[in-house]
């Protein structure tokens, strides 16, 4: 088996920036990723990435990808990593295509994914009314009734998009009050077609081929709401399950030091999958470059 200097897992802002640095250092490396762009591809408007006063998520991802490809980078796209383990001084990476790769070092930049409700019907009706991206799927629910699950900023953002599209919007929030920014909260509360259910949990998604209703429990009382769409906006969880032996915090984020090293020599991590203090595109990009430079120094010593 070929031994690479470095394997980069993930191609969001952190992973792609790491590839640019790895290419310029002429490292012998490989990128393994399910998709290109990660969460950035799902962002609508970006106004805080230096150099761009305004750019859309897809456009920024295209710029990132062009930059990465300009170095003829070896990218295994559409391949999911299932296991990362260090043994005998090398890091072994297994993927869902049944393939194995090995390298002297890895950078884990696998980001975060939407948290799921874990209630009956959720998986069955995914893309059949259940969605995790209001920006993407919202417009299909024109003049229909929808429920948004969650009460934070992402739920409010989804709500503000959907009140202009859907007929009736229900917010199912499991705490006594909506969280999130005051400006957004006020807009949501003032909208004529929004009903807010606080202290409420979704217990099931019901349907027949497509979503027809959700069942909720509000302080012990069961209710059924007729909806065609369910937007799940209850936060994100790190894609860190596949990494063996690496220290993680209570949220499952990989713990790194200020040089992006984990507790295992040769395994580095960057971006939203780590416990870095803020989750921003520009921070993830910076972390990707730091992780690559740290890996480069590590390789010089080993």
């Amino acid at each position, binding site marked *: 088996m070929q031994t690479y200097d470095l394997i980069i897992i993930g191609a969001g802002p952190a992973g792609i920036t790491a590839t640019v640095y790895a290419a310029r250092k002429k490292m012998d490396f490989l990128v393994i990723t399910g998709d290109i762009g990660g969460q950035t591809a799902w962002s609508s408007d970006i106004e805080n990435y230096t150099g761009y006063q305004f750019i859309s998520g897809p456009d920024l991802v295209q710029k990132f990808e062009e930059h990465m490809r300009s170095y003829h980078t070896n990218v295994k796209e559409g391949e999911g990593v299932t296991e990362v383990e260090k043994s005998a001084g090398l890091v072994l990476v297994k993927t869902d295509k049944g393939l194995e790769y090995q390298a002297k070092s890895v950078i884990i930049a696998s980001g975060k994914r939407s948290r799921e409700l874990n209630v009956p019907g959720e998986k069955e009706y995914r893309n059949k009314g259940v969605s995790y*991206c209001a920006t993407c*799927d919202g417009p299909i629910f024109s003049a229909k009734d929808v429920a948004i699950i969650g009460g934070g900023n992402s739920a409010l953002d989804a709500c503000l998009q959907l009140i202009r599209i859907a007929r009736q919007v229900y917010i199912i929030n499991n705490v006594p009050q909506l969280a999130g920014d005051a400006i957004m909260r006020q807009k949501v509360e003032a909208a004529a077609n929004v009903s807010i259910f606080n202290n409420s949990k979704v217990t099931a998604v019901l349907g027949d081929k497509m979503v027809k209703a959700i069942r909720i429990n509000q302080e012990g009382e069961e209710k059924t709401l007729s909806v065609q*769409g369910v937007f799940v906006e209850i936060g994100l969880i790190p894609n860190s399950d596949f990494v063996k032996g690496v220290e993680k915090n209570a949220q499952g984020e990989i713990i790194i030091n200020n040089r992006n090293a984990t507790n295992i020599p040769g395994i580095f991590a960057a971006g939203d999958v780590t416990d870095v203090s803020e989750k921003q595109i520009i921070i993830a990009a910076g972390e990707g470059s730091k992780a690559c430079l740290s890996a480069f120094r590590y390789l010089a010593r080993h």
Partner: protein
Amino acid sequence: MAKKVKIYSTPTCPWCIRVKQFLKENNIVFEDYDVSSDPAKAEEMVKKTGQMGVPVLDIEGEIIVGFDKEKIKASLGF
């Protein structure tokens, strides 16, 4: 003879934008249906695929849900 490509999409969906960019880069001509403003086409898409996610590509009857580069390449032969 080039295959006829139809896309069911919405203006805001990032993967719709990316799939259209990808087809344009490869000089593929396609017909684009905006399912957010065309309820009949939205219904047609749901009937064809049994699901509501966009984008959906219809390449002469072969249905591809999502931006699946490999499937698109295989279907269009490049």
